């Protein structure tokens, strides 16, 4: 991205001054461009946004054509066309009168409203250009603006820089200044921009299904509030998820002050109480734990997927993998020893895949393991574990003790409280506190035991003690423990108010429904995992009549007309009295966080509990099945069910899309006679037919597809949450099975006593990579640290890449830039952030389950998952399963390799794919004839073909999201990774205008930008000092299938594991 003007406030872009882009020459890459200027005084922010009736109507009638960059000049409505090609010149500065947001909204309104009208796209046809009447400043067409904001998620808030084209947020990047992001993002954050444009969103307040205005709601809310106050019986209840937002918390407290008996309940289905209660158990109070993964030499994870899940995981991932870059040059912390990770877990996780030693144990046995560990460290207590595990444990303990103060034990959030308590105790015993982890005040505004909180609410509702229930977000009807029978109890409440993104299972049974604004639409604030406060600043006025949690809560209070914007400012003002507030405010918005608002680490927090004191725990039965619930990697707790990007995203380990499945280990599968058959259509790259099983658990039943997962602990059945939605929207409804149906309060995360019966039915699953066997080919190169130290070039062993001289033809020279990419397999854990980032940046189409099953998904970068296991077969349901009981797992991101001797180019009959002078393997969509010969001839199979019209050219919302810098491919055209050539070109143009060459790091591809582990590095291979050249210079560097002499520009650094020699010998 060549320029990122970084404004305090998007709505203020109109008042930006000319130096807006004099500045952007200076900076490069990710770095936000700070800008000092007049304080924004935006009266309009307080105004109710202009009526979007027209827009809404248009949005509801999804007619119209694709208008963004299309290959063929497809018919577009001329007017609309011009809203896109609309020019946004800078205004001469003497004309400085405040422009209110109306213009902006009108632009939005008009562009949406006009989307549908049809026109003809003939060359002759007359089209119009529609300039502004009064020009909002700051916007320059074709120059994206970047704004800092945060995405609140669970007990965390991820710092973001959001790219905006003419007022449309199109792409999300990480905010380098923000502690939770450090510039990276995860798949959810990348995909969240699509939620904004989700056409199925709740769009207006309704009362028992009838459209109401916000004013009418406010009136009603006031009445309810007043009534509750008068009544005073405490019948007024608020149900939220985890709240880290200070203003929301304050608002709730304010309401509670008004109605002292009223209660605030919290329920977050996918975040366990274990963490909270564990802290309480250990310290007698709720505390927040912050890890310093980069400081830890040895890490033991007790079923903790801390690299891909839970607060701070993006940061932890960065910190963790910075300790696994084997090259001092690449290692920011200067060549420390590589860290070592031990993982004990019931089911393979992203974290487990990176482990140097991994031990599959039933979830319940993890508790035993923790106790045994504590015992070994002399903290008292003991656990019963298998001899094998014992040996494993001894090795781990030895290692931990060797690294007192530089080790770290992390308990999984789905483990019960005592495991967390034990972990705290163990860390204390190992002297890690204050070194590899700290304790701070809780990030949650009001930490409570969510299960108990919900239980209480349900009881009260049942007893008729609740007359007004305000449900903020969440989706309890869908995700509450099913023994609570939330629905029937909800029906007993007379006044129900719901704020929700969609009209979902819960909304259906609430009287008042308010559409919830996306975090890119409304003002707010949130705390990050370490307590850092950030302002959620909107980039766009709400597309529909939606509102934020704060606004809805405020409606019940005494100041219903105080907007989120005021509240946030007011709170910050209170926080920093005096000083130059406006300056502070601007800086806050600009940096995307309130300077040093992170909680100070608490000192002298000692675990006051002894492992011995824990009640005895009987080991889990060996042959009885254990069912565990986990948030799904794609839909999380179900909130992302309607997000096409995530639905089609192959889950990191299983590579399943569009469905969840009950995961079982190969051995268990054999016991239950479950198997896979590879379908004739699509086959290994698309469609696997799996057995359907009936699960009877906790007095309830659910039918699910079974999936055999190598590396899973025997006897464990994983039931991923977040699927089987009944009212999620067009994309998400009726996908997969609903694990909540068998989830009860007594066994929220780990359940036993269930049975599985195989049914006669079969179910086709869309799996993008079923073949995990490398067939002994030189595709992914791995080794151990010892091997690496002995022979750093082990990756090139037996590399038959012929010397450049061996050719009839003379080599082409690349005198200028030579773009290249290096991917460090040692840092990739398959988290998928890059895949979604690529989808968002390059307008990649979602094709749907049926097409994925035919092997036609469109992702430009795929992450291959291989098992390092000597198995002759590729079928986990056979005896080879033994080899697959606990295989080493490796991930390999594969984008277009940009071969210098590209096999694809030579066979294209029309020259639609040829080389650029900078060595890019150009794909010229508008020249492509669609013979698919190039794809056949591509050894890496990274090319993707538009077999049908995959792009959604009707839904106007999706048009708004698309990146105007990238052509939207039409049917019948081949496409593939271009190294984000649009970013390259923009950077080049900027540099050329200044007669300078492009600075290393000035161009960051979408995948590289998103990657939390810095596994992907792009740059100019001709510049010996560029990061990519340095990586390529490493001896671990090799190219896939080098012997084919395709000379890929994308090369890989071999994965190196750091196993414990003691366990090795064992």
């Amino acid at each position: 991205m060549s320029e990122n003007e970084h404004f305090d406030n998007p709505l203020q872009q109109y008042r930006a001054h000319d130096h807006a882009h004099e500045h952007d020459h200076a900076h490069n890459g990710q770095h936000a461009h700070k800008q000092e200027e007049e304080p924004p005084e935006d009266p309009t922010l307080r105004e109710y946004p202009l009526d979007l009736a027209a827009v809404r109507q248009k949005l509801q009638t999804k007619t119209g054509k694709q208008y963004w960059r299309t290959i063929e000049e497809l018919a577009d409505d001329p007017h609309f066309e011009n809203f896109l090609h609309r020019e946004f010149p800078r205004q001469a500065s003497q004309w400085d009168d405040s422009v209110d947001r109306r213009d902006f909204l009108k632009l939005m309104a008009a562009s949406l409203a006009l989307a549908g009208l049809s026109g003809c796209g003939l060359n002759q046809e007359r089209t119009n250009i529609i300039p502004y009447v009064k020009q909002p400043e700051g916007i320059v067409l074709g120059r994206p603006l970047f704004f800092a904001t945060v995405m609140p998620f669970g007990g965390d808030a991820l710092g973001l820089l959001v790219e905006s084209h003419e007022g449309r947020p199109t792409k999300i990047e990480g905010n380098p200044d923000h502690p939770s992001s450090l510039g990276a993002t995860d798949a959810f954050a990348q995909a969240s921009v699509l939620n904004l444009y989700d056409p199925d969103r709740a769009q207006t307040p309704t009362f028992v299904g009838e459209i109401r205005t916000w004013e009418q709601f406010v009136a009603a809310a006031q009445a309810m509030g007043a009534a509750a106050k008068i009544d005073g019986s405490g019948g007024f209840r608020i149900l939220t998820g985890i709240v880290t937002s200070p203003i929301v918390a304050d608002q709730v407290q304010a309401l509670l002050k008004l109605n002292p008996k009223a209660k605030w309940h919290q329920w977050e289905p996918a975040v366990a109480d274990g963490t909270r209660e564990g802290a309480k158990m250990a310290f007698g109070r709720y505390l927040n734990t912050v890890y310093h993964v980069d400081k830890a030499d040895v890490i033991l994870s007790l079923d903790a997927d801390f690299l891909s899940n839970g607060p701070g995981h993006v940061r932890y991932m960065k910190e963790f993998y910075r300790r696994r870059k084997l090259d001092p040059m690449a290692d920011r912390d200067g060549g420390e020893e590589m860290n070592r990770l031990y993982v004990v877990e019931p089911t393979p996780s992203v974290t487990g895949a990176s482990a140097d030693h991994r031990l599959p144990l039933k979830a319940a046995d993890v508790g035993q393991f923790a106790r045994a560990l504590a015992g070994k460290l002399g903290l008292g207590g003991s656990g019963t574990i298998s001899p094998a595990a014992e040996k494993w444990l001894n090795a781990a303990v030895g290692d931990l003790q060797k690294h007192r103060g530089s080790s770290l034990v992390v308990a999984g959030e789905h483990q019960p409280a005592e495991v967390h308590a034990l972990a705290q105790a163990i860390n204390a015993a190992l002297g890690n506190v204050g070194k590899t982890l700290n304790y701070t005040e809780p990030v949650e505004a009001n930490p409570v035991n969510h299960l108990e909180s919900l239980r209480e609410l349900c009881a009260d509702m049942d007893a008729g003690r609740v007359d007004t229930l305000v449900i903020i977000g969440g989706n309890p009807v869908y995700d509450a423990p099913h023994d609570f029978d939330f629905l029937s109890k909800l029906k007993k409440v007379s006044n129900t108010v719901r704020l929700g993104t969609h009209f979902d299972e819960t909304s259906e049974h609430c009287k008042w429904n308010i559409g919830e604004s996306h975090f890119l639409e409304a003002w707010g604030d949130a705390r990050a995992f370490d307590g850092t406060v950030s302002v959620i600043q909107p980039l766009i006025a709400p597309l529909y009549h939606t509102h934020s949690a704060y606004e809805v809560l405020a409606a019940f209070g005494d100041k219903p007309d105080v907007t989120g914007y005021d509240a946030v400012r007011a709170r910050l003002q209170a926080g920093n009295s005096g000083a130059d507030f406006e300056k502070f405010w601007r800086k806050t918005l600009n940096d995307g966080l309130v300077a040093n608002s992170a909680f100070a680490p608490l000192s002298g927090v000692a675990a006051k509990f002894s492992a011995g004191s824990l009640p005895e725990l009987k080991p889990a039965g060996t042959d009885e099945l254990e069912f565990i619930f986990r948030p799904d990697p794609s839909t999380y707790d179900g909130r992302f069910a309607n997000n096409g990007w995530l639905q089609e995203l192959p889950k990191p380990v299983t590579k399943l899309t569009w469905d969840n499945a009950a995961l079982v280990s190969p051995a268990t599968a054999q016991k239950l006679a479950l198997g896979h058959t590879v379908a004739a259509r699509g086959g290994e790259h698309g469609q696997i037919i799996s057995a359907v099983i009936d699960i009877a658990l906790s007095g309830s039943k659910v039918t699910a597809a079974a999936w055999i997962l190598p590396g899973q602990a025997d006897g464990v059945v994983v039931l991923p949450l977040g699927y089987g939605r009944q009212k999620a929207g067009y994309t998400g409804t009726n996908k997969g099975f609903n694990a909540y149906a068998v989830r009860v309060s007594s066994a929220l995360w780990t359940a036993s006593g269930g049975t599985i019966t195989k049914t006669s039915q079969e179910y086709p699953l869309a799996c993008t990579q079923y073949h995990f066997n490398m067939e002994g080919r030189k595709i992914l190169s791995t080794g151990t640290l010892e091997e690496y130290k002995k022979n750093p070039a082990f990756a090139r062993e037996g590399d038959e890449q012929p010397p450049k001289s061996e050719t009839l033809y003379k080599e082409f020279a690349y005198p200028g830039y030579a773009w290249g990419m290096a991917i460090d397999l040692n840092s990739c854990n398959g988290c998928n952030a890059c895949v979604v980032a690529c989808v968002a940046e390059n307008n990649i189409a979602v094709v749907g389950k049926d097409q994925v099953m035919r092997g036609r998904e469109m992702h430009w970068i795929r992450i291959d998952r291989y098992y390092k296991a000597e198995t002759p077969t590729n079928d986990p349901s056979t005896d080879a399963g033994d080899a697959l009981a606990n295989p080493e797992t490796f991930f390999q991101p594969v984008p277009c390799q940009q071969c210098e001797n590209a096999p694809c180019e030579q066979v294209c009959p029309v020259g639609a794919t040829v080389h650029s002078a900078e060595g890019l393997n150009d794909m010229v969509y508008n020249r492509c004839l669609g013979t698919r010969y190039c794809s056949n001839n591509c050894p890496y199979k990274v090319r993707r073909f538009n077999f049908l019209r995959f792009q959604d050219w009707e839904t106007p919302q999706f048009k708004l999201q698309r990146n105007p810098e990238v052509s939207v491919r039409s049917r019948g055209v081949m496409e593939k990774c271009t190294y984000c050539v649009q970013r390259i070109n923009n950077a080049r143009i900027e540099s050329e205008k200044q007669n300078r060459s492009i600075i290393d790091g000035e161009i960051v591809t979408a995948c590289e930008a998103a990657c939390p582990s810095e596994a992907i590095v792009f740059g100019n291979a001709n510049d010996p000092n560029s990061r990519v050249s340095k990586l390529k210079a490493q001896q671990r560097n090799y190219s896939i299938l080098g012997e084919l002499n395709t000379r890929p520009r994308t090369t890989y650094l071999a994965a190196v594991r750091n196993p414990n020699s003691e366990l090795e010998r064992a």
Partner: protein
Amino acid sequence: MNEHRSQIFGVLGEFETPKQLIRAAAKTRDAGYREINAYTPFPVEGLSEALGLKKSAVPLLTLIGGLLGGLTGFGFQYWSAVISYPINVGGRSLNSWPAFIPVTFELTVLGASLFAVFGMLALNKLPEPYHPLFNVERFRQHASNDRFFLCIEASDPKFSAADAARFLKDLDAQNITEVED
């Protein structure tokens, strides 16, 4: 034959076997007739010699056509890949001549064949749907089936209808006819 005839094209005689025809043709030529031609339902070996026809020019044309096709073929490929729009295709050098051979070959064959066929037609002055000989009933019925005709044409210097007819009679040709023009 009826009156008010225009001038005639020639005198036509008819034979039953190729052998007879060849013999007759040879004799006629020896007799000094030059503008003579024979008509047979299939190519008859030795006939052209008997008629003293000179070698056909078709092979030469074919050669020219072939060369033309081949040269343009390669020339164009070279021009388009090296001169008109030089671009790096998969690291192959601009003039990847080995890859240009197949098309060159095909175009050679194409050129040659077109020249051969259309050359043949042109030299034969075809198409020629109308011809005086078609005025002769028996010619129409048998020339393309089972009879072999010899025609002494009026354009011959020593031609005279009566003599020609008589001459043919001596060669025991049947159904001797004067062919109206």
